[in-house]
């Protein structure tokens, strides 16, 4: 749909090449990041050195943060970069330091059934995407109702320019309260699990 739009623009507009190139560039960047994500994920499967796996998972988080910027989700991007790539990697590294450095080899028989399950599930999911609204469609059901309402009402209701902040702290404040409860509970669970053995407190800690 949008491609047609761009070619139509190319036919009518005075300086069309630049826009088409710009669009192509942004699509190219997105496809590049997505391809790198897949490459990182796949190389994680085979690597048995857990330190390397932790590093790759940090790279994966950072790449997805870059992808979030490309998709206009700047708040999510910096949270993912700080929490996903930063805190999470530190947690995994300390987990590795306290357990094992290497993963034991897995025998072949154990890998076949998961592979089958994964391919069947993946096939079913790909089949279901045929009905999904196209990427970036403004009329998609996900973009039509509440989200549009938040965008329209935020200037009157909350007076915060960042709509994500407004929704997070005001419209869905109870969600955020629930989140805080979950994080608190998780921190408590970590302390209970590790507190008896680790003197001087939680290496596995909270965020």
């Amino acid at each position: 749909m949008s491609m047609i739009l761009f070619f139509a623009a190319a036919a009518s507009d005075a300086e069309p090449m630049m826009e088409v190139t710009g669009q192509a560039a942004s699509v190219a960047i997105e496809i590049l990041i997505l391809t790198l994500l897949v490459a990182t994920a796949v190389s994680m499967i085979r690597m048995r050195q857990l330190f390397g796996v932790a590093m790759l998972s940090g790279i994966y988080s950072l790449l997805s943060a870059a992808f979030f910027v490309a998709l206009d989700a700047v708040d999510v991007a910096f949270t993912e970069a700080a929490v996903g790539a930063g805190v999470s990697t530190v947690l995994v590294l300390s987990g590795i330091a306290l357990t094992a450095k290497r993963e034991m080899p897995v025998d072949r028989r154990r890998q076949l059934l998961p592979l089958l399950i994964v391919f069947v599930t993946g096939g079913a999911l790909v089949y279901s995407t045929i009905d999904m609204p196209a990427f970036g469609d403004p009329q998609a059901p996900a973009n039509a109702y509440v989200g549009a309402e938040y965008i329209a009402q935020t200037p009157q209701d909350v007076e915060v320019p960042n709509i994500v902040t407004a929704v997070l702290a005001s419209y869905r404040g109870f969600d955020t309260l629930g989140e805080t409860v979950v994080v608190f509970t998780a921190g408590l669970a970590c302390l209970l699990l590790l507190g008896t053995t680790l003197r001087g407190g939680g290496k596995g800690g909270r965020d």
Partner: protein
Amino acid sequence: MIEFILARYNYWIVIALMMTGLYIVFSRGNLVKTLIGLNLFQTSVFIFYITMGKVFGGTAPILLGGHAEEGHGEEHGGDHAESTHGTAYGEHEDSYASDPLHEGGAVNTIEETHAELSPGESLHTAPEGAVNELARAETPAGDVAKAALDHGTEILYSNPLPHVLILTAIVVGVATTAVGLSLAVRIREAYGTVEEDRLEAIDNQDDRAEVLV
């Protein structure tokens, strides 16, 4: 065909990532690696949500140009105002249609025009219905422009709701990862290993020992 693929490429990549994570969870015996696989799966779900919230030609959901202050209790909706909007949109139809990616710029121009015509009023307080009618009547142009008008906002923002949900999910995800890792650490302390096969073997041995006793 290419169009169809491009419109769904993101979904397929997300599915590939998701299945990679699921495969790691299923096939690996090491508990820490399983948790990393779970993280992989989780992040792919984040990417899926953000993909759904993307709007072509939209910008990050942060209000532009001091709208937060302007939006208060202004009322206008007379014929004059409507026709002003009409011409403003009409004039910039072409830039809307041809330039969805840089729409922010085009819209700013509209706002400037509008400010000259009727200072002190902001576009987005315009009566929605009127604007919609104008859009249908006068713009056979791009879907992007029409959608912007249908939503009653003149600047197209990406959907903020998935962003909020995923912000919450990221933090909660790290919290659960921390709990999982500390469980792994406890298991290591109790059994001396975090490999599922060995854990199972040790458990079976214990059972047998109990039977013998």
